[in-house]
């Protein structure tokens, strides 16, 4: 199961716990660590997986990092390509996995609306939106040849509200970054960028304390925060319903080019 440490991953882990109860989750959790994740995410990951007794595999594209891959130098597109997409494909290949669970939802982004629950990837890990297997009823076709794989998206039909509601009802632990508090931020082009990972400051920029929270968790240099005072799950839900803004809005990478999520997905990104 691909484990991103985000709220959707937390929900998936809970569903897996329920599905195999009273047994343990029979497969490992795989985290693709770009080394640019928030400190709080890594702390949460290690504590949470230890608590539930899950097996955790962490994979990093160290070669690219040693070659100096970072978002400031390469730009977000190239950086994601190396540290997320490449790293993910390598990790799946190294493990010999023919299937991997992901937490993607169809309501997140336009190109995901046509994603299958069982999404076929060829031996290069690529998704072909024109050539997807028909998916009827709940009869899923999991057949693959050697080298090919299936990404399985159990949360396909969940909405953002469903995810939050479930977290609330089930009391599922999530990374504290989702909750509002005073954080050190740089205000850049209307986006709040957290001061972490030695982010290079542009001329005239100065960090300031801002009451804010993250709506989605990615790498700290590429994840914007929103101004918010929502420090509990019900308040987050309330806020979400008031704002009605898509959660991906604050991820810089989805806006770097028209249809960019679809391009990343064809290449193997989630």
């Amino acid at each position, binding site marked *: 199961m691909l484990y991103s440490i985000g709220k959707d991953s937390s929900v998936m882990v809970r569903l897996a*716990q*329920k*599905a*195999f*109860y*009273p*047994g*343990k989750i029979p497969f490992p959790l795989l985290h693709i660590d770009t080394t640019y994740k928030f400190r709080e995410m890594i702390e949460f990951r290690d504590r949470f997986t230890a608590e539930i007794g899950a097996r955790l595999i962490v994979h990093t594209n160290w070669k690219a990092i040693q070659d100096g891959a970072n978002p400031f130098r390469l730009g977000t597109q190239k950086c994601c390509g190396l540290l997320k997409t490449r790293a993910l494909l390598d990790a799946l290949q190294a493990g010999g996995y023919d299937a991997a669970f992901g937490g993607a939802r*169809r*309501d997140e982004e*336009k*190109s*995901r*609306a*046509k994603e299958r629950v069982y999404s076929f990837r060829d031996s290069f890990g690529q998704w072909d*939106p*024109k050539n*997807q*297997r*028909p*998916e*009827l*009823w*709940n*009869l899923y*076709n999991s*057949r*693959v*040849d050697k080298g090919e794989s299936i990404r399985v998206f159990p949360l*396909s*039909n969940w*909405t953002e*509200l469903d995810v939050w*509601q479930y977290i*609330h*009802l089930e009391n599922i632990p999530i990374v504290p970054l989702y909750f509002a508090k005073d954080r050190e931020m740089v205000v850049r082009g209307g986006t709040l960028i957290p001061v972490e990972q030695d982010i290079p400051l542009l001329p005239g920029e100065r960090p300031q304390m801002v*009451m804010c929270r993250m709506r989605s968790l990615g790498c700290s240099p590429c994840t914007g925060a*929103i*101004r*918010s*005072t*929502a420090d*509990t799950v*019900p*308040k987050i*839900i*309330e*806020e979400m319903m*008031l*704002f*009605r*803004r*898509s959660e991906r*809005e604050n991820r810089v990478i989805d*806006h770097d080019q028209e*249809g960019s999520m*679809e391009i990343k997905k064809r290449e193997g990104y989630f």
Partner: protein
Amino acid sequence: MATATLPNTADIETFLRQNEEKELLRLSTAGSVDDGKSTLIGRLLYDSKGIYEDQLAAISKDKVDLALVTDGLRAEREQGITIDVAYRYFSTPRRKFIIADTPGHEQYTRNMATGASTANLAIILVDARNGVLAQSRRHAFIASLLGIPHIVVAINKMDLVDFRQDVFDSIQAEFSAFASRLGLDDLYFIPLSALLGDNVVEPSRNMPWYSGQCLLDHLETVPIATDRNLADMRFPVQYVLRPNLDFRGYAGQVASGFIQPGDEVMVLPSRRTSRVRSIVTYDGDLPKAFPPMSVTVTLEHEIDISRGDMLVAPENPPLVDRHIEATVVWMNARPLEPKRQYLLKHTTQQVRASVAAIRHRIEIHGLRHEAAAELKLNEIGAVAIETFRPLYFDPYRRNRATGAFILIDPLTNETVGAGMITGSTERESSGHRVTAEERHARLGHRAAAVWFTGDADEAHALERRLFDGGCVVNVVTSAAMARVSAEAGLISICLGAGDPPDGFVLPEDLEALGIIDGEPFTGGAGI
């Protein structure tokens, strides 16, 4: 961006409780390219405030083109048409909705079937200017085939026909006549304009003559709770949980009926019986489980059970057979051929299977049965299937969960067909004589000896018409030859004069007697 003031937490708790209890309605939409389907969905999402503002902003910088809200993929934006099944989500204070948006193209039957397979309700769009076109008939047919319980016929673009009631009435009459042959019983007609919003979310001021519900109102209130099969207990085993020596549980999703501790159950295929000891979940044991709950069941006796087995009510078991009859929607460029090997996935089991025979192809516009040696992409036919191991099934009409299957090509691993089981194959002993019914099934029409009193040219013109309509037909000059031909299953046109001899029909009776068109199709239940 200013931070909005947050009302107190008690309100949101109330909201969440209500939201949790909301029913979910899954609907499929289908329409031709120009029917305004995407605009209608865009309107539903937009007017019910389901569209996130920034997604809208990314789509269009100036004017909102509602169709672009649903047309996702890059290639499609370039082509300007929707080409696959896209799922959209919205909710109102009364219900949650999932829309499976499918294209209305002739060649995309497979997508429409996919969207329809999980739907409670289908919206069939009709362009008020064009009336009931082939595509609308196709949608209605597929909706009936896939067993969608509720149909809304949305007669769109009423603004372009001056909101006239007579246009609406005549389309309603025409559609109803067609739908009655399909056995569709819950039909609801709504005149609307997706572009202007008339009768979508708000009642139309332009059509005071319409007193029915607007679309959203109907979607929010159509009763769906009773659509589920709660009569026939079926629990296909998905996974055997054996975390330690003291626990042995069978995990799966309840397909139909209720399960309660103490219930007697029979295990298929072994037919051994036991009692339900407990229904185990992460949140504690349950007193009862029903569809669509996923649970783990433990039994009082140690029985060897594996994935693909099924727990059923012993007094009300499903059919168990290796020979089944089914209607198949073919979804692959490589045609379905008799004798080829496929993998058949049904509930939680996957078995090798082959198509024993193609009974007939169903011609989708006139619903005629035609003889066929193969089923091509997007064709629909009745087939006999033989499986390597028995299936435990119910007819699809009675139970969607245990009556549905998919066919997989073992060489390419593609999903190539979707099937709806109609029953077991009735087996005759070998050497049994060919019956009129078998000839009928093979040829797609009944046999007849036709007494024709016109001249030879007229007879051959009739022959041509019938032949082009898919019939096997000849023109003969003696009553004896006509009788022999009819015995062989043909429609035999005999040139004669005066009153018809015994056993002959007149040309004008062909349709009324159900020899051609109409009759062979038995209204859903038989296909």
